[in-house]
């Protein structure tokens, strides 16, 4: 039953113009049955007051409130989930390709909106990095409710660019964000292999947990063209005359070789790489992400336990 509820065709989802509504629709389906963590802890984010009970740490008694009301209350803070997630959106022109109703860009945007909503549900801090014209736009990770809306608005305003430097966004990211977070890259990975691998490794070296969602179009996977035709590169504008029946095998071999190399490097660097096509329901990607997040949190807590680090 669950599967039928949230396995919505991306082409149908693409008709929903409100990203917030779209993401909520998808994520509510995915998260149905899951519960928000009831644990509150101490952090810099104030959550509420609670009457003092025996056993409470006296350090958290609000003495000012006691002076005003003559009753003991302890301050409760939002429990930090210990996950800061930065979403990296590849807005290059190659993402603006579609053989069917949904472009890779549109699919990636829907996916990112859903990821942001999922992260918000889990009270994780979510940030966004994307190229915006000549500059790179950066929304630092936060977990406030209003922050989700800001990310969604930012996503809504993004447009596919001409020639873009997606790897530049990764490089920029490496410079600005704090270590030990999670970085989610959503891209078609149609960039020079060496550069891409170098930046991913650089982020990984800063102890980030990196997960890469490779978005592909079905036509890129099968090269189904039959007429002799001139192909125009979406980013560079370069033209390539081709007889599809003749070059199909070589094309598929080249593509396979490119991504196999990338996959090998990612595996070696413990970077999670998963490919999704624009005709697949979003829930598959979201499940993949949730699974990865759970695994990352467990690994982090085990490391912390080994290091003797306690929560505040």
């Amino acid at each position, binding site marked *: 039953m669950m599967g039928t509820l949230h396995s919505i065709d991306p082409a149908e989802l693409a008709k929903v113009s409100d990203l917030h509504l779209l993401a909520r629709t998808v994520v509510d389906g995915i998260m149905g049955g899951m519960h928000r963590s009831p644990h509150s802890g101490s952090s810099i984010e104030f959550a509420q007051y609670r009457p003092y009970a025996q056993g409470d740490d006296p350090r958290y008694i609000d003495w000012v409130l006691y002076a005003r009301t003559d009753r003991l209350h302890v301050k409760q803070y939002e429990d930090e989930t210990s996950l800061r997630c930065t979403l990296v959106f590849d807005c290059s022109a*190659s*993402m603006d*390709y579609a053989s069917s109703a949904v472009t*890779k860009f549109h699919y990636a945007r829907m996916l990112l909106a859903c990821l942001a909503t999922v992260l918000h549900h889990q009270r994780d801090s979510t940030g966004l990095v994307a190229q915006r014209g000549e500059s790179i736009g950066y929304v630092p990770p936060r977990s406030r409710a209003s922050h989700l809306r800001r990310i969604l608005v930012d996503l809504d305003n993004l447009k596919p660019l001409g020639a873009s430097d997606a790897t530049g966004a990764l490089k920029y990211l490496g410079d600005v964000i704090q270590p030990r977070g999670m970085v989610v890259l959503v891209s*078609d990975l*149609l960039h020079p292999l060496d550069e891409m691998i170098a930046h991913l490794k650089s982020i990984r070296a800063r102890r980030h947990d990196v997960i890469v969602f490779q978005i592909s*179009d079905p036509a*890129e996977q099968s090269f189904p*063209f*039959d*007429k*002799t*035709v*001139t*192909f*125009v*590169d*979406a*980013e560079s504008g*370069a*033209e*390539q*005359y*081709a*007889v599809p*029946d003749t*070059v199909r095998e*070589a*094309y*598929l071999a*080249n*593509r396979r070789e*490119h991504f196999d190399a990338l996959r090998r490097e990612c595996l070696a660097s413990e970077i999670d790489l998963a490919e999704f096509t624009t005709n697949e329901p979003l829930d598959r990607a979201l499940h993949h992400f949730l699974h990865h997040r759970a695994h990352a949190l467990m690994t982090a807590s085990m490391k912390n336990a080994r290091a003797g680090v306690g929560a505040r």
Partner: protein
Amino acid sequence: MGLSFLAPLFFGGLALLAAPYIIHQIRRPEREPIRFSSVMFIPNISKEVIERRRIQHILLMLLRMLLFLLLALAFARPYWKTAAAVTETGGPALHAILIDTSYSMGRGELFADAKEMASEIVAKTSDRDRVAVMTFARGQKVLAPFGSSEDTEAGGAVAAKEAIGRASLTEEGTDYLPALQEAQNLLTAQTVPPGQLEPRRILHVISDFQKSGMPASQAGWKLASSIELDLAPVTPEPGRNLSLMDIGIKESTDGALRVLGKVKNWSGDTVTDAQVALIVGGVETGVNPLSLNPGNATQTSFVLNRNGDGPLEGYLELRGDTFALDNRRYFTWNPPRRKPLLVLADERGDQPYPARTFLSRALPDSAGLPWIPQMGALPDLIAALDDPATRPGIVVVGDIDALDPGAGQRMMDYVEKGGQLLVVMSDRMNADVINAAFLERAGLRTDGPAYPDIDPSRAETLSWVDLDHPVFVPFRGANYNDFSTIRFTNHWVFKVEDPAVRVVARFDDEAPAILERTIGSGRLVVWAFALSLDWTNLPKHPRFVPLLHETLAYLGDSTKAASAWEVGRRLTVDALAVNAAGDSTVQVPGQDTPAGARLADFEHDDVSYLAHAGFFRTRAPEDETWRHVDPVNLEAIESDPISIAPEEFMLKMAAAPRIAQPEDAPSPGETVEPAAENTIGAEYGRLIIAFGFALLLLESWYMSSLRG
């Protein structure tokens, strides 16, 4: 000499040559670049490859253009003109004038125009020429022969003109081939004494050249090369042209009759005010209004309640059309006739259930069955064969002891003359007698039963039956086609010595179980097993009665007399009702009083020829009422006004050229040079289509090679 075309209008199809060019332009690769996410994985193709492909595509385009060119050329039907074979002549000319008198010539002033044309041809002949006049429709009639050289009156212009004046329309359809053959015989029969110049032989055909008059099957025959063919087409004025094309009568389950008529509008005008009336026994019983678009046909129907069981006769009449001849079609309704069926099977003291028992029970005298059974012995059959009045339509030879070669030969004579014979083998028959009696004449031979004794444990089945045979067609359904439960402990072994014998069913050992052979106009069916419970369980099996009835129905249908006749044909003996002496009284359409007819020579008698539409009636001379009435109608296809172009007619029928007009007749000894139109056609359309097909295969191969 030179190339010419029968249908040059099809060259308009050359405009299609632009189609491949336009398609190639639209589909040119450089015209429709595809924006792709990245070309980094697409391998480079060299400039030379691109150039080569461009040339290949141009070649493909030219190939396709050539295909269209050939298509247009083939439809234009090219033929090659060659010089006339006859170049030297000079004697007097022989003119045979063929005037079409089919009923379609009755439209407007066609026939008057045709006679005028014939008179003009006669007027242009010289004194030394001789002229013969023939009319033709379905049959032919020589109105003025050439005569002989001694008889100067015959073959002259005066006699010809007088014959043309006498020519009259018939109600027949058109058939060009026998008319041309007859005219050729007339022309070639005229010989010249030695030393005299060979005369020119010219055949003039004056007709509306209806396409229906020359079926494709006649295309093989051509006029002799010594005969020049001159065609004079007459064309009707355009106008309203409706015709009653068909008529039918059906009996519904409640006993009422439904009369159906098919009306076609041949003209280019819409007709809204036409009517079809039903007249039965001279009384109008109904009128249906009609509305018809150009070129369309429609069906109209009337319900007719019968009064009594006697025959009915009537006609449908189309009103609102000026050409009246094809506006009436006749119908009759005769109560179904049950055929006499003679079953020969002896009583047997040695068997409680002989074949006679099974046959008599399976063939009761019931009004629901299409035959009147009569059980008899061999002498009964011999006596019945001698009496034309009592001669049975079908004979079943079951189990008879005294079959001798003489009786068998009589039976085969009966079959040859249209009789239907079912022979069920019996355990008492002698192989030599049977072979000599009738099997050898049927191309069959038997060596006797397969086994000398009866062993109930040895059971064969019908391993194969021909479900396409009319006898087995009703058994095709999944619930009925299982014959495996019919067991045979013994059977006769037949050797088929003539390919005309058709095996309808076989036993497990491949021996024929049921055989059929057409002999003369009759038919023989043999069941290669005895209807004895020692031999088979078939008589007790649920399939027995249906199988026997279907076999007899099959045999009965083959003798069914035609119930509808066409003008221009002859009646057959099957249509006659005769008395014991073979005499009959008939009345054919156009006859005011009934005439006598004899069975023996009826088919060659004048009274059997149908010259008019109406009713054919027959009875025995001593009968007071007509025993049978059949409708006689015009050939419906003759109403079809579509004509064939004279050039095409010439191409199909003429082997000789039209070399000169009568006024250009040469003087004795003068050499005639073939003129430009003096041609013999050889059509190349099919050859071009064959070449085009080969080109299409080449194009397919070339295109697949380009893709590969």
